[in-house]
């Protein structure tokens, strides 16, 4: 049934409560937040793996046009020097969030003369994301963010989603192929692997879950933070990147060979 209510068309039923984040539906859902999460689900996959001596990010950056410069529109950001931020969802929202994270880190440094602990940053970003789910005059952020750092408490990985909920993870995936990525991650014993090993595994997972049919071109973004980088977050060096991609492609060949053999 269609109603026109105050100049706005809405379908009667559960979807009548989806126009503002300040409304619950009768079954207790906030649809705007769920729609924001759908925006995340439409984006390229991002995985984070927390290992023995650091954390590794791998992003499946889907390239929508051959005219783009290589490495443009990066989806991995650095906050302060030691925190990596990888995002899935609306990239514009993600950039705004990265700026907020940088401001938080800067204020923390000005107050306490120390780099912000990543769990504190995850908390602050979670609360910030949540604030945008409370009012009808703003919309929630359409992005999930993963944060990683290596410090006194060892490697740490957190993920915050558009609802503001944030958890610490040993391995995490967001984006369109996150379920298959999760399956792949669970096959690994991430806490026993070093960054050097994990970076190759991460690249392999991205190649495995990438959908060749729907999205032809993609660029693999890899970054890490760990003991070997002195706690600094950085995109991996070119040679490491190339080695990881070779490993991933070789592993893919093996899998497809074994599939054909069967």
């Amino acid at each position, binding site marked *: 049934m269609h109603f026109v209510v105050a100049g706005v068309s809405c379908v009667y039923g559960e979807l009548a409560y989806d126009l503002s984040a300040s409304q619950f539906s009768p079954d207790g859902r906030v649809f705007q937040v769920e729609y924001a999460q759908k925006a995340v689900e439409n984006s390229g996959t991002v995985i984070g793996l927390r290992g023995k001596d650091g954390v590794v990010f791998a992003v499946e950056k889907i390239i929508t046009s051959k005219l783009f410069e290589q490495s443009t529109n990066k989806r991995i950001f650095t906050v*302060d*020097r030691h925190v990596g931020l990888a995002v899935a969802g609306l990239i514009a929202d993600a950039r705004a969030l990265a700026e907020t994270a940088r401001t938080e880190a*800067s204020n923390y440094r000005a107050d306490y003369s120390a780099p912000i602990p990543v769990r504190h940053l995850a908390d602050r970003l979670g609360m910030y994301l949540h604030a945008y789910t409370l009012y009808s005059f703003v919309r929630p952020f359409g992005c999930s963010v993963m944060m990683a750092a290596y410090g006194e408490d060892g490697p740490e990985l957190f993920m915050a989603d558009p609802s503001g909920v944030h958890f610490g993870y040993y391995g995490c995936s967001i984006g369109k192929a996150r379920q298959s990525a999760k399956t792949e991650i669970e096959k690994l014993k991430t806490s026993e692997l070093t960054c050097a090993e994990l970076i190759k595994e991460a690249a392999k997972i991205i190649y495995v879950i990438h959908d060749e049919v729907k999205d032809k071109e993609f660029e693999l973004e890899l970054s890490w933070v760990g003991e070997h980088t002195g706690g600094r977050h950085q995109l991996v060096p070119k040679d490491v990147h190339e080695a990881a991609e070779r490993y991933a492609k070789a592993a893919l060949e093996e899998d497809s060979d074994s599939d054909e053999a069967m």
Partner: protein
Amino acid sequence: MMWKIPEGGHSPLVFIKIPMFLCCGHLDFKHLTSTMDLMPLQASQPFDPSKYRYTGPNVQPRQLPNTRSQAPITTGTSVIGLQFDGGVMIAADKLGSYGSLARYQNIGRLMRVNDHVILGCTGDYADFQFLRDIIDQKMIDEECLDDGIVTRAPALHCWLTRVLYNRRSRFDPLWTTFVVGGLDDDGKPFLGFVDKLGTAYTAPQIVSGMGGHLATPLLREKMEGQPPLSEEAARELLIRCMTVCYYRDCRAFSKFQIATLKAGSIKIEDDLEVKGDWEVAHFSKEHA
């Protein structure tokens, strides 16, 4: 509530502006009347033309410019900088003077800004610390952007000039003099000076503070009209200048640092000391 803090030094006279109804026994609307008092309170009195005179504009005196020039508290003395073949070298002693008291004897006045810039600071140490934290944060922000653009010495020198000049124009200076060193965009050595007034210039040798009078002639004598110094010769010359400054500057100290910047490397030596030769003291009547 408004506190008026006058220029530093003497005991402060504090003016507190309290809402009128708190201080007067009766309601007084004088401050609300316009320039011409058309209806004086004592309307029943005989007409007095003087009460109808123009009393002047009814405006509050402007608070700007803020007359808050200070005196520096904990200060650092000279910073000596010179260019050599392929880089720059800056030296500064490790003393924070509290007036004439040699109070803090192990403070660093040289700073590595990033891989391409070093600087040294004369003057108020708190103002240096304030700017140092701001510069550090600028460098963090730049690293995060990771876009291949880095701040080099001429850019930082320019930025410092703007900051210091604008502060002085508000009569609220950062009481510091900076010596900024590095390589410019063409890879040639760069050395810049900025003082608390925002005066800025570049030269092959820069000295701030008292050393400007003591060391500048020594540096110029050795460097003007000559081919660029080698790194060893530059270091020797710098140490000689630090020695002269230690003998002759009353606020100098024997322990000092040297920062050397060449293409691709920055080195800060931290444990240098002027070996003073006080044999000449025997010539003095007071020191037998």
